[in-house]
Structure formats: C-alpha cells, structure tokens
C-alpha cells in the first residue's frame, strides 16, 4: 500500500517526536497545519486550536483562566497535532487520563483529500463513531490534522512532589514515578489536603527528570508487572517507571542497549515503542501487530493510495 516516495506526504509539527514510529522516506512532502487558537470559552472548559499550535501556547492561554489540559508532552514546544498523532501520554496520566481522553473533536484531511470532522465540540458527545480516538496515536497515517477541540479542567490550587517508600495507598495521586530506589509522588488539590497527604513524606523539589539519551523509548507492561520489568533492565539502560500505569521510560547510549530493553518488555508481556535513536531498520513494536487485518483496512479506508507517512507505524513494517 506504500505509494511512490515522490507522492509521500509527511505531516510535521515541531518535530519533537519525529522519530516515533520511524520517519517517512526522504523526499516526502512535509505539510504543516494552521496554528493559533480558534475558540476558547473558559466556562465551557473547551479550547479549539489549529494543529500546529504549540503546547506551550495552549498551556499559557489556559493558565490565564486558571485552567489546563494535562497533555504534558516532554517538550513544551510540541504541537497539539504532534501530541495527538503520537498519542504519548504525560506523567500525570494516573489522575488526568491518557491523551485520548482529552480530545473532543478533530478535523483532518484524509489521504484522498477529504476534510473530515469527527466527534463534537461539547464536553460530552456520542454522536457517530469515535474518530478522535481513532486519530490519537495514528502517527499521521490516516490524516493530516487541521484542528482539534480539547477538554480542559480547572487547574488544581496546589501541586507538590514528595518522595515516599510506597504511595500505593494514597487517594488519587496525580503521578507515581519510581527509579528503583524511591518513589516520587505528585499530589494535586487544595494545599490543606496536600499537607495531610504529604505528612511523613520527604518533600521533593520538582518532578524527577525522565531519562535522557540518544536512544530512547517507552516500555508498556501491565501495571502489576512494571516493578519486575524495570528490575530486569540491564545496567546500561536508564529508566523511570510510572507506577499504576505500566509505562517505563528508558534511555541508553547505544542502540543494542535500547533493544535489550525491548527484550525485557517482551519477557514481561509488553512491548517497547522507540521514541528516539535506536536501529533505523527496526521500528516496530517488536511484537506482531494485533488485529492487523482490521488496522490495514482502516489505513486503506482513510488513505487508499498509501501516501500518508509511508513506512511509519503502525503498519510501516508489518
């Protein structure tokens, strides 16, 4: 289904997630979406933006009204289109939900040039099929996002990080990160409650940094296996695990080291998505794509000529 390289189209935002799923071939035509806020009504807790609007800009505008949309990309320069296309959730997912739960409406152009709207602009909507969730994580392979309507919420009055030995019993922490020695937990809410929740814990200055390196990826395993999987990682793999979720952020200085993390993920019933670096000839999840026939038909339905991001996941290597 891969079209000729000279007709390949690669939607591009800020390029902060460019390696995710494997870049399209050289010579692909890069297309950029419009940027800017199209509509924001604080009392509706929804914001509609052009897909090339950066997270930093959206967050700044929402902050002026005491609101936020907890997409939490690694880089604030990331665009809303890039965040949605990659579908990589931030570390506050435990409380705020994954990226897909923040998207109300999408407008994208399909591979055969149709402008399509899916979902609706209201905070609640079940009219028709859930194209917004289909789009999130589709890595630019079914359409070029033009605009999206996001669900926002009031910013919590307070937010503080603490180190703890085990915060599994705490009431709805926003994040629980673990580096093998200690857990760092984020509580959000009114300051008086945070103070009670933090009693007996050591305040932490800030969120722990996610591992950096030329070769990066994220492991997904069932939440109950995240500790065992992290412990099985090789010494040359730096990592940070999201407890309660099952994501382990990994980084290494060599491609083989990153691939060893994928092997550990497999051994614990999961997989690893490469986010940066790594061997360029291996861009899959490292496991057979589940329900590939349905996914292939979806790809063909939205991009019959295979022009959109040829070679990129999810079907790039299958």
């Amino acid at each position, binding site marked *: 289904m891969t079209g000729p390289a000279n007709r390949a189209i690669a939607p591009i935002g800020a390029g902060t997630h460019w390696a995710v799923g494997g870049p399209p071939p050289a010579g692909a035509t890069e297309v950029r979406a419009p940027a800017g806020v199209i509509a924001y*009504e*604080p*009392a*509706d*807790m*929804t914001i509609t933006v052009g897909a090339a609007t950066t997270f930093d800009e959206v967050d700044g505008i929402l902050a002026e009204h005491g609101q936020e949309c907890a997409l939490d990309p690694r880089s604030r320069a990331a665009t809303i289109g890039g965040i949605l296309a990659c*579908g990589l959730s931030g570390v506050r997912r435990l409380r705020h*939900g994954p990226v*897909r739960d923040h998207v109300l409406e999408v407008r994208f152009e*399909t591979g055969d040039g*149709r*402008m399509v*709207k*899916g979902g*609706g602009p*209201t*905070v*609640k*909507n*079940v*009219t*028709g*099929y*859930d*194209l917004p*969730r*289909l789009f*999130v*994580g*589709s890595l630019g392979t*079914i359409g070029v996002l033009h605009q999206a309507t996001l669900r926002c919420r*009031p910013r919590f009055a307070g937010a503080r990080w603490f180190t703890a030995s085990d915060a*599994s019993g705490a*009431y*709805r922490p926003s994040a629980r990160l673990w580096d093998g020695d200690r857990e760092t937990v984020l509580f959000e*809410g*009114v300051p*008086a*409650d945070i103070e*009670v*929740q933090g009693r007996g814990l050591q305040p932490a200055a800030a969120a722990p940094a996610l591992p950096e390196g030329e070769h990066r990826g994220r492991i*997904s395993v*069932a*939440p*109950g296996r995240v500790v065992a999987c992290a412990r099985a990682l090789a010494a040359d793999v730096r990592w940070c695990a999201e407890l309660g*979720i*099952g994501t382990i952020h990994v980084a290494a200085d060599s491609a083989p080291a990153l691939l060893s993390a994928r092997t550990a993920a497999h051994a614990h019933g*999961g*997989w690893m*998505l490469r986010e940066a670096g790594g061997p360029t000839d291996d861009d899959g999840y490292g496991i057979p794509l*589940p*329900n*590939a026939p*349905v996914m292939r*038909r*979806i790809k063909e*339905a*939205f991009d019959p000529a295979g022009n959109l991001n040829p070679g990129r*996941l*999810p079907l790039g290597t299958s």
Partner: protein
Amino acid sequence: MSAEPLELALYARDAGVAVGQAVAVCFPRSGEEVAAAVGVARRHGRPFVARGSGTGLAGGATPLDDPVVIVTTQMNRVLEVDADARVAWVEPGVLNLDLSRAVGHLGLHYAPDPSSQQACTIGGNVGTNAGGPHCLADGVTSAHVLAVDVVLADGTLTRLGGLVPDAPGYDLRGCFVGSEGTMGIATRIAVRLMPDPPSVATMLCAFDSVEAAAATVSGIIAAGVLPAALEMMDARITRAVEDFVGAGYPRDAEAVLLAEVDGLEHGVAEHVDAISSVARANGATLVRVAADDSERALLWKGRKSAFGAIARIAPDYYLHDAVVPRTKLVAVLRRVYEIAEQHDLIVMNVFHAGDGNLHPLLVFDRREPGVWDRVYSAGTEILDACLEAGGVLTGEHGVGMEKRDLMPRMFTVDDLDAQARLRDAFDPDGAANPQKVLPRGSRCGEMQRVPEGAWI
C-alpha cells in the same frame, strides 16, 4: 436458539419507540457461544444484533433486516477483580449497579452511572458509550474501559485494547466503545475501578428562575470547581418528583441544582463553600448540604426517580438527549420551552447541567389523536436548536435508529463517508446491527454528490 413467536415478539424492540423483527433469538453463555451464534447467522446469510437488557432509548437494539438477536443477559458474571490494579473483568450481561455492588467492599466503584443503572448491562453501556450524573469529572464509559474481548462480524474472537497501556496500532478499543453493536459483540470487558472518595458532600440549591440556576452552573466552573456531579431540574419535574418520593425538594422553586463534590476533606469543604457563595450570589432561595448519608441518598433518589415520577403527569413521555455548550444552556432552555408551547405539549427538564447534557422530556398521552406527530416535530426542532447553539445530537443515549436520519444535520457527506469507512473496516459485509447509526447513503458511492451551491 429460539424462533418461538412469543420470544421473537419480546425481542422486537428495546426501550425506544421503533419495532423490528428477528428471525431467531439466542442466549449464549460464553464468548465461544457468541462466536458460534454469529457463525450460524452468517452461514444463513443473516445479520446479527447484540442486546443486553434492552434499556436503550435510541432503538439501537431494534432487529432490522431479519437478524439473529444475540442476548447477553446469561453472561452475567464478574470474572475477576484485581483490587491492587483496580481492574475488573466482567461479562457483558453484568448489570451496571451489580458491578459497583460487587466491588464495594474493596472501597472501589465503577464510575459511569446511567439513570437505568439497576437494569442496564455493562455490555450495553459499552455499546452506547453510556454516561450518567457522575461522569462530569472523570468521563463517560470510554474513559473507563481498558480492554474488550469481542466477536467480530466474521466470527473471530479477538481482544481490543488491553491491560497493558497503549496497545500497538490504532485504538480499536476506542473505536468499538460507542459503536452501538455495529462493529461486533463484546464478550468480556475489562473496566477501570475508581477508589471511593474519603469525603462526599451533596448539596441542594433552589432558585426562582432557570436562568439563575444556569448562571450558577457557569459560576461554579469559573470558580475553578469541577464537581463530581451537577444536575438541574426545572419546576415541573421538581414538583412531580417531590409528590412521588418526597426527596425534600422545595415545591416553589423554579429550578433546583443538585451538586456533589468529592475527594479529600479540605478540598470538599472548600468546594462546598465556593458553590454556596456562587449560588447565593446568583440569588439562591435555598442552599442546603445533606447532613448525612441518608439525606444524601434521598436527594439522589429524587433525581434518579424523575422518570418514574412523570407517570403521574401523563401516561407517556418522550425523552431526548442532546448536548450544548454550557454557556448556551439558558438560551437553549428558553427555546425548548417555546417549542413545546408551540406544539401544545408539556416539556420537563431534568439534566446533567455540568456538561450541558439536556434531557427534555415531552409528556403526552398517546391516545390523543395526532399527538405523536406533534411530539416528533417538537423533538426534531429541539435537536435543531441544540445544533444551532453549537451542540451535538446525543450525549449518552446513542444514535441507534432514533437519530440516524438526523446525522446529516451534524455531519457533512464526507464526515459520514469517513464514519462509514471506519465501520466497514470492522465489518466489511455490514452484518453487525445493520441500518443503525449511519443513514442510508452515507457511503459516497451510494449517493449522487451534489455540487456545492447547487439548488435541489
């Protein structure tokens, strides 16, 4: 499997108004039996329709095109509860409230709580992507379903999503939830359970105008408070409920708001204060915080008995479901009353104000000649008013048959074509719950495209 006339008649409709006709009805007890039933239907060239308790209001389970109806009510076991991971695996026929009851002793609950929760199934909830009063803060069904084992239209049994986050590839789980049985049948569902909040406060606020109540809703959000639930009832429904169950609602109020905040102790107290101030600033005639659990339960009993209370006004009602932006609530409500008056109908409003999800109830007596035409026209005009205000056709009941032919009012030819392509990717032959959700002619090949600007 049964083809007895009585059984077929029983399963010819759900709680909506449309009536269909099945060729056979079956009651499988496992995923394998569901797959076998789909296989039998397909071998005989028949489509199939999944059905839970039949509480759907949009006709989503109406058997059309002489299908086999596959009833999941025998598959009603909670299979596994992992309290540490806060996940439960359930069969599709488990009743919504039974799930929360089954995990209550662990300090957990299942968040989506449709008004029909004593009768509706989790499988049906997955089909419609059901909501409920407590979906304001934490989202509707799709945000609470991690994985679905399904029988696809070709009879294969497969898993969509999973307990491992972010399954590789497209989010088929996300596509399936809310697809109203048109992409296959759920046979096992993994749901996320929520920890019970340590503190809960339920408040009743009364107003002498709907406008003041709606302004309070916007004011609460503007004050940075996101309640767990925020429900509104107009004067007519308030009095009907009070006559019916004696929930302690003031009979002289033009509108009442039921607000619930939950979480940790101090946050709840601060939010109760904030809501009280906003309500008083908007002229509330009464602000009361339930003193204990029994008073809380009584306040909620009133809200959840609303539809039963209507029987005291008229024998029949038609319940609509549409969403408008919160900021348009007052203007749209005014239009709803006008439209009902123009059609000489009584309308009552009880709805999820926090998320703008309106449920206008048109009450009538079907024995009155011609009344149904008026109810239908008024309903369609109400939906148009919601769409004009930037709203959507349905917030939680689904499209089914009821709103299928109204879809072009919200979506373009290309939008509908894209949705049809997605549906066809799951079910190329159109065997799963045919003629639902999308109107005939949604696929571009099926219709003559009219050039833009042309008069027809």
